[in-house]
C-alpha cells in the first residue's frame, strides 16, 4: 500500500519527531511511505484569517504537490489540516482561478483518499493494537477540527486503549477549544490565554503526567503554556505513543480485539 505523507507546515517547521514516528509506525504496519516534495501548507492560516484571495495559490500548490506522486492514500499528522484538505472541494467552489475545473477535479480525488493518522490506522489498515507500550498516566486532548470538521471522535481513544501500560484519564471540559485557533492565538492572545489557562487547569485536575493529542498545533499551544508556567507535563503526539517500545508480536487487527465502545464523549 502506497502512502504519501501530508507533512503540514507546522510539522516541517517545528516538529520533525512527529513525522519520524509516524513514518516508522506506518512502515511497520506494511505501508510504503513517500513524502511529496513541493507540498507546503493547506492554506488555513490565510484562509481562516479572511485572506481568501491569497489562499488560492496556497491550495493550488498543495494540490499540485500532493498529486505529483502516485499513491493509494494520503496520511496527515494533524486532524485540523486533514479536515481542511477534505473540505477543498467545497472551498474551491468559489475559486476564481480554476477555469477548467482541473484543480477541483484533483481536489476531489485528494479529498477522498486523505486520512488523519490515527483514523488511517484504525479505519483503513484495520489495526487496533500497534504493539506499543507506554508506562504512564495520560489524558487526551481532542482537537476541535478533528472532532467537528473531520468528524473523527473515536479512533485515537480506541488506539490508545490498546497501548500496553497506558492509563487514560477522562478530561473535564474535553469539548472546549484549547485556544489555539491558528492566528487567533496571536491576534486575540488575551482571549486565547484565558482559554488555554482553563485547559491547563483541567488537564492538571486529571492527575495525568502525559498529554496526548492528534494535533501538533494544540500541543504547541497547551505545551507552550505549561512551559511558560514552569509546570511539568509530558507532551506527546499520538504517533510518538504508538511508536513507543513496540513489540511487533503484539500487533493486532480490529477483528482480534473486543469491539470498542462508541465515542466516549459526545
Amino acid at each position: 500500500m502506497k502512502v504519501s505523507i501530508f507533512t503540514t507546515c507546522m510539522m516541517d517547521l517545528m516538529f520533525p519527531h512527529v513525522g519520524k514516528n509516524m513514518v516508522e509506525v506506518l512502515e511497520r504496519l506494511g505501508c510504503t511511505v513517500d513524502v511529496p516534495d513541493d507540498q507546503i501548507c493547506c492554506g488555513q492560516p490565510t484562509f481562516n484569517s479572511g485572506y481568501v484571495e491569497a489562499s488560492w495559490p496556497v491550495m493550488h500548490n498543495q494540490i499540485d504537490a500532493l498529486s505529483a506522486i502516485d499513491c493509494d492514500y494520503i496520511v496527515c499528522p494533524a486532524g485540523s489540516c486533514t479536515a481542511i484538505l477534505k473540505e477543498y472541494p467545497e472551498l474551491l467552489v468559489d475559486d476564481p482561478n480554476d477555469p477548467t475545473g482541473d484543480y477541483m477535479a484533483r481536489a476531489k480525488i485528494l479529498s477522498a483518499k486523505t486520512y488523519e493518522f490515527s483514523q488511517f490506522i484504525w479505519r483503513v489498515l484495520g489495526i487496533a493494537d500497534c504493539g506499543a507500550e507506554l508506562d504512564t498516566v495520560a489524558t487526551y486532548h481532542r482537537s476541535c477540527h478533528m472532532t467537528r470538521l473531520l468528524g473523527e471522535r473515536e479512533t485515537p481513544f480506541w488506539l490508545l486503549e490498546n497501548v500496553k501500560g497506558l492509563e487514560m484519564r477522562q478530561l473535564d471540559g474535553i469539548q472546549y477549544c484549547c485556544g489555539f485557533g491558528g492566528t487567533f492565538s496571536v491576534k486575540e492572545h488575551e482571549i486565547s490565554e484565558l482559554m488555554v489557562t482553563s485547559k491547563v487547569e483541567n488537564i492538571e485536575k486529571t492527575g495525568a503526567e502525559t498529554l496526548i493529542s492528534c494535533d501538533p498545533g494544540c500541543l504547541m499551544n497547551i505545551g507552550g503554556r505549561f512551559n511558560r508556567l514552569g509546570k511539568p507535563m509530558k507532551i506527546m503526539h499520538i504517533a510518538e505513543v504508538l511508536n513507543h517500545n513496540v513489540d511487533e508480536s503484539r500487533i493486532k487487527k480490529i477483528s482480534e480485539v473486543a469491539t470498542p465502545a462508541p465515542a466516549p464523549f459526545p
Partner: protein
Amino acid sequence: MGLSTSTLPFKERIAAAAKDKFAHASIAKAQDTQYTKRENARAELGNWQDWRKLGQSIRQHVIQYLPDYLEEFSDNVEKRGGNVFFAQTTDEANDFILNVIKQQQGHHVVKSKSMVTAELDLDKKLQALPDVSILETDLAEFILQEDDWDEPSHIVFPAIHKDRNQVHTIFKKLGYEGDNDPEHMARFARKYMRERFLEADVGITGCNFAIADSGIINLDTNEGNADLADSIPKAQIVVMGMERLVPSMKEAEIMDNMLARSAVGQKLTTYVTFEGQQTPGETDGPENFYVVVLDNNRSKALGTEFQEILQCIRCGACLNVCPVYRQIGGHGYGSLYPGPVGAVLSPILGGYEQFGELPFASSLCAACTETCPVLIPLHNLLIKHREVETDRLNMMHGFTDFQMKVVGKGTSSPFMFKMALRFKHFGLSPWTHQKPVTATNFFEYNNSMITKGPGMVGGWTDVRDLPVPPKHRDDFRVWFKHHKKQGGDAK
C-alpha cells in the same frame, strides 16, 4: 443602549471580562449545566441530525419567501382585527410604539422578554414618558432593571453574570427582607410584580414565531410572564424581528420542540402559547393588538452569503457551547447579541466599524456550528466576515495586510518555503532563552525556548513559550531522505 452594550474599546472589554472572576465562574457553571441537559434532551428525541435538517428547511424556506409570508401574516392579523406596523428603522418602531401607548392612554406598561425591544432601547424611551411606568417581568430582566438597567449578557439568560448575592443586594433596595435563597427571592419578585401586573394597561411582548396563515403569534416562556402580559392588559404590542415567521402552527410546533430542547434542555418550555387579537365574546386578552415588524438592517443579510443567519431561532445554544463566550461573557462582546450568533449578526446590524472585531474573536472551533439546531454554519460565516473585512474592505485587524500576504506567499511557493525551512533557525538568538523545558518530549529537541518574540510572534509569547525551530539538518524532510536512502521503506 440598543445594540451596543458598551462604550469601551474591544480589548478593554476583554480585560474587564477577564477580571470578573464571578461572572466567569457563573457562566462556566451555566454552560456545564446546560450541556448535559441539552444533549440529553436531544438524544431522547432521537434522530437529532434529521430534526436539524427539518428545522433548517422550514427556516430557509421562510427567509427565501419572507416578503410573501410577511404579507400573508399581516393580512391575517388585520382580518382578526389587529394592526401591523412595518418599521425599517428603530426610530420608526419607537415612534409607533410610543404613539400607541399615548393613544391607549397607557400608564402602566408591562414587558415580557424581547431582545428586539432591547435593540430598540425601548425601555429608555418609555422611561422618558411622563406618567408611564414600565416593568420588565422576566425575572432576569427584572433583576437587570432594578440594578439600574444593567445590560443583558445572554440572549436566553440575560442575568447570567449575576450571582444570588448580587440579586439579594438589588432586592433589598426594593424592601426585601429575606435571605439569598433563589426560591425566596423569586417568591418576593412574584408578589412585587403581580401587584404591578394587575394594574397594567399595555403589555409589550416579543414573539418567538409569527404564524403566517392565521395572524397569531407563538410565545415560549417558562415563567408565564408573557401570558400575563397578553392576558391582563387590554392592549398588546408585539415587537418582532422581521425574520421570525413560520408558515403555520404545524411548523411552529416543530420549532418549539427544537427550541426548548436547544435553549433549556426541556421537551417544551412550560408555556407554549399561540395567541392574538381577542375574539368577540372573550373577556381578557388584547382588545387592541399591534405587531411591529422590525428590519433594522436585517435585510442587509438577504441575498448575501450571510442570509443563513436569519434562520436563527435565538436558542442560545451556540453561546452555551462557545469557549470564547465562556471566557469573556456577554459583556465582552459589547453587543446585545453576544456569542457566535452575535459575532455574525452584530456586524450586519451595527456595521463593521463598531463590531468588526467580533468575527475575529473566535478560534473557529466550530462548536457553534455543531450545536445550532437550524444548521447555520456559524464558524464559516465568521470566516466570511473576515474575508469581507480583509479582502474587500481592506480594514486592518491586528496583523498588517503585509504580514499576512507574506504568509500567503511563503506558503504558496515551494522555493520560498524551502528557504524558510533552511533558515528558520537563524536570527532568533536575541529572543531565545535557555529555559528549562518543563513541557517535556514535544519541545525537547533543542532545549531552548522563545519567551518573548518579535512582531506577530509577540502575541504568542505573551501567553506561552515557543520552541525554537529545529536546525535544518534535523528537519523531517532531511531525515526522510536519509531514511529512504537507507532502505527504510523496503517493506
